[in-house]
């Protein structure tokens, strides 16, 4: 466009003014009124671009006759006047930002006991080599979803008490290779058990044998000590189990110093009174003796007392139970795999020791169930150890050897005749004596030493030894064990019973574990049934039967427990047509019959021993008075068998 160059500024301004004052802004410039004339050439070019004739938009753009135009030409006449406010502006009350004072609630946590860390692992020790820290899979397990938190106990009422538990770290992170090194990652149910024990003042941990009561207790004790909750602990256990506890403490909590109360009475007195001994381990007998001598008022105080194999105080009138109740303590934990061995009243004694029922209280079955829910934690293998290899029970029904058969029949016939002759004056002890004599004959013929059980055992052991397996055998008597050991020497047979001095027992277990040529360990129920860890043995033989299946189960569970890699084959020898068959039948019936306080399906606790009536019923005992023959029954006051 050339027009802008040819026109003066004033002309352009006036044209622009015209355009802005009159024509609408959308009108093409060339067609607007008073527009600058466009050359012919431009018009043609423009027409080519739009390819059509331009349409003139002739919109009228005259000024609206409002009279404003005239008004705009006049000057404004402005005048100001001042106006007084009616009153002064009111002010809101002064507000200044301040930090409000807050009340707070606070608590500090007690200092835990610090212990000298254990020395670096000695690599030459085979035990140490097996110990390993949590691996990668362990740390995956410690995510928050699987964490086990401590819960405040029901009797913690103050906020401070409750917060103490809520603010503790999850057990998994507490124990996972940080402050408290664990040689192995516990199972989830064990974490729960530890958390439960930690928060209980009165607790009965009644997990089935082999589920790790010892480890849960040691870890619970460790956490209590490290968090400053307890400073002095007494652990009571049967004497043969002391080395086991020492070993387990060393394994699970190496840094904790433990002191065994042993030696002559002066030395024991010194140990009882020694300060700075966080953990004392004593056996029931020496505890009872020593505390009796000290007198009730001089018994030392403990923050925690743990009773292992707590069925030892099942009889509340026993001296052991009385002395155990008199120990001044803040926390009471009892451990047993068989809280009821015979009668549910045994629970009352345990609850009395735990101070959850008044002295001499006799809670009924319903009350016991309520108490059980709050103060007993019991898990069975079926419930928690779905990955534990199965236990295969294999009763071996054997015929007696000819010599045994003759001896047995003679003994039974004579024995029954003697008992019948005694009439109503016979006691359970008389019947017991006969039962024991007959059971001994089913083991060995007293004259020739023949034994169908031993023959069978020998045959089985050939196979077990050839495959490199290990077996443990239990018997009620120690003498047959020694006899068997001679005949089975070629299997590297070892003997472990009450007749073996305590100091020699640990090396025997050690040899059985580590010597590849040692395939058989012969044990007595009394010494070997509780507390030992023999999970490397895949075979268990019950040479003769105990009165109480709970004890048999305890024995079997030396092998069938955590750490067992293979199935455990349990062979129970039962001689046909003998007293053994009859006892077995009665016990099996009882297993089915009795219901447990601890819930349905818990077959372990249902197993109770034979009553006096049942023992009398093993024989056809009759007395003839004149023409009348009547059955001989036990007197009502007679106590059931052990």
């Amino acid at each position, binding site marked *: 466009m050339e027009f802008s160059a040819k026109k003066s500024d004033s002309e352009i301004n006036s044209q622009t003014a015209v355009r802005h004052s009159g024509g609408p802004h959308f009108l093409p410039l060339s067609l607007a009124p008073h527009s600058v004339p466009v050359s012919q050439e431009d018009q043609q070019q423009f027409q080519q671009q739009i390819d059509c004739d331009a349409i003139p938009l002739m919109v009228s753009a005259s000024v609206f006759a409002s009279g404003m135009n005239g008004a705009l030409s006049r000057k404004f006449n402005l005048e100001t006047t001042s106006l007084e406010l009616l009153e002064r502006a009111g002010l809101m009350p002064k507000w200044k930002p301040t930090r409000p004072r807050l009340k707070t609630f606070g608590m500090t946590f007690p200092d835990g006991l610090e212990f000298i860390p254990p020395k670096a692992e000695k690599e030459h020790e085979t035990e140490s080599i097996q110990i390993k820290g949590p691996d990668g899979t362990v740390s995956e397990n410690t995510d*928050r979803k699987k964490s086990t938190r401590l819960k405040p106990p029901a009797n913690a009422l103050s906020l401070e008490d409750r917060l103490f538990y809520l603010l503790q770290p999850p057990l998994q992170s507490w124990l996972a290779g940080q402050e408290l090194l664990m040689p192995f990652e516990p199972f989830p149910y064990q974490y729960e058990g530890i958390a439960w024990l930690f928060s209980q003042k009165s607790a009965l941990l009644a997990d089935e044998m082999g589920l790790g009561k010892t480890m849960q207790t040691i870890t619970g004790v460790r956490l209590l000590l490290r968090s400053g909750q307890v400073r002095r602990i007494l652990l009571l256990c049967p004497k043969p189990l002391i080395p086991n506890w020492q070993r387990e403490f060393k394994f699970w909590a190496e840094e904790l110093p433990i002191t065994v109360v042993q030696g002559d009475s002066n030395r024991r007195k010194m140990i009882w009174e020694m300060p700075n001994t966080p953990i004392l381990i004593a056996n029931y007998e020496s505890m009872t003796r020593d505390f009796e001598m000290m007198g009730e008022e001089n018994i030392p105080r403990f923050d925690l007392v743990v009773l292992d194999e707590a069925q030892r105080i099942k009889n509340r009138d026993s001296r052991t139970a009385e002395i155990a109740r008199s120990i001044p303590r803040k926390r009471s934990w009892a451990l047993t795999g068989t809280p009821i061995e015979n009668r549910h009243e045994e629970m009352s004694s345990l609850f009395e020791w735990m101070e959850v029922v008044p002295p001499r209280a006799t809670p009924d079955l319903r009350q016991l169930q309520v108490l059980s829910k709050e103060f007993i934690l019991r898990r069975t293998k079926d419930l928690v150890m779905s990955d534990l290899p199965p236990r295969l029970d294999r009763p071996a029904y054997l015929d007696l050897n000819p010599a045994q058969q003759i001896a047995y029949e003679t003994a039974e016939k004579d024995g029954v005749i003697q008992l019948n002759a005694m009439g109503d004056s016979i006691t359970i002890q008389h019947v017991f004596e006969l039962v024991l004599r007959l059971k001994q004959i089913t083991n060995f013929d007293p004259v020739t030493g023949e034994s169908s059980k031993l023959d069978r055992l020998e045959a089985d052991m050939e196979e077990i030894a050839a495959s490199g397996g290990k077996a443990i055998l239990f018997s009620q008597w120690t003498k047959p064990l020694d006899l068997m050991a001679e005949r089975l020497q070629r299997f590297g047979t070892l003997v472990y019973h009450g007749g073996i001095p305590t100091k020699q027992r640990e090396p025997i277990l050690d040899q059985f574990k580590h010597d590849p040529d040692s395939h058989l360990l012969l044990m007595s129920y009394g010494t070997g049934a509780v507390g030992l860890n023999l999970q490397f043995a895949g075979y268990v033989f019950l040479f003769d039967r105990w009165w109480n299946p709970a004890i048999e189960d305890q024995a079997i569970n030396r092998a069938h427990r955590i750490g067992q890699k293979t199935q455990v084959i349990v062979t129970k020898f039962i001689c046909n047509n003998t007293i053994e068959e009859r006892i077995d039948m009665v016990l099996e019936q009882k297993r089915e019959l009795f219901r447990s306080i601890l819930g349905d399906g818990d077959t372990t606790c249902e197993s109770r021993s034979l009553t006096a009536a049942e023992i009398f019923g093993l024989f056809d005992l009759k007395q003839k008075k004149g023409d009348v023959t009547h059955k001989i029954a036990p007197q009502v006051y007679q106590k059931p068998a052990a």
Partner: protein
Amino acid sequence: MVADGSNELRLGFLTTIECPDGALIGGLLVTNHYGRPLEFQCTTPVKPNRTQEVLYGPTLIPFLLGEVIGLTLVEKMNIKPNLILIEQEQAIELQKHTAIPVAILSDIAQILDDSDSFLCEQIGKNRLRFDAGHQSGRAAIENTSKKIPGDADLGEPFERVREALNEAVKMGSSR
């Protein structure tokens, strides 16, 4: 070594929960570097009035979390932490009122805006952000990263604090 010359690293975990009536209650847990609790303090519930809501506007929550609750708790603590961890970003206001370094804890997977005013450091499973201008912050975070194992979850103690605060609210309301 930490700032006060002691060898032990003490971590503070500060968080706030909202009560059913809208009030805020805060708690500060000080633990050792294993996560074992050493001291815990919590406040009574704080509820701003209408005037405060209007006048503070968007600065109200940072004021409450950082200055009112956070500072009160830090002042009350007998065992002073070497590093305070927070999970609510608005509580970083506390840093303006205390010499103890304050760091915002976030998940390692969380995508954060790049900002020159914050420095980031990965510790355990978490990431810590702290004020770039704070002199002792760097030293505290470095000290923390040395003592905290790689698989540690620094978010876990906050769960404990929240649970404790809920317990306090529950017990307070039942009285």
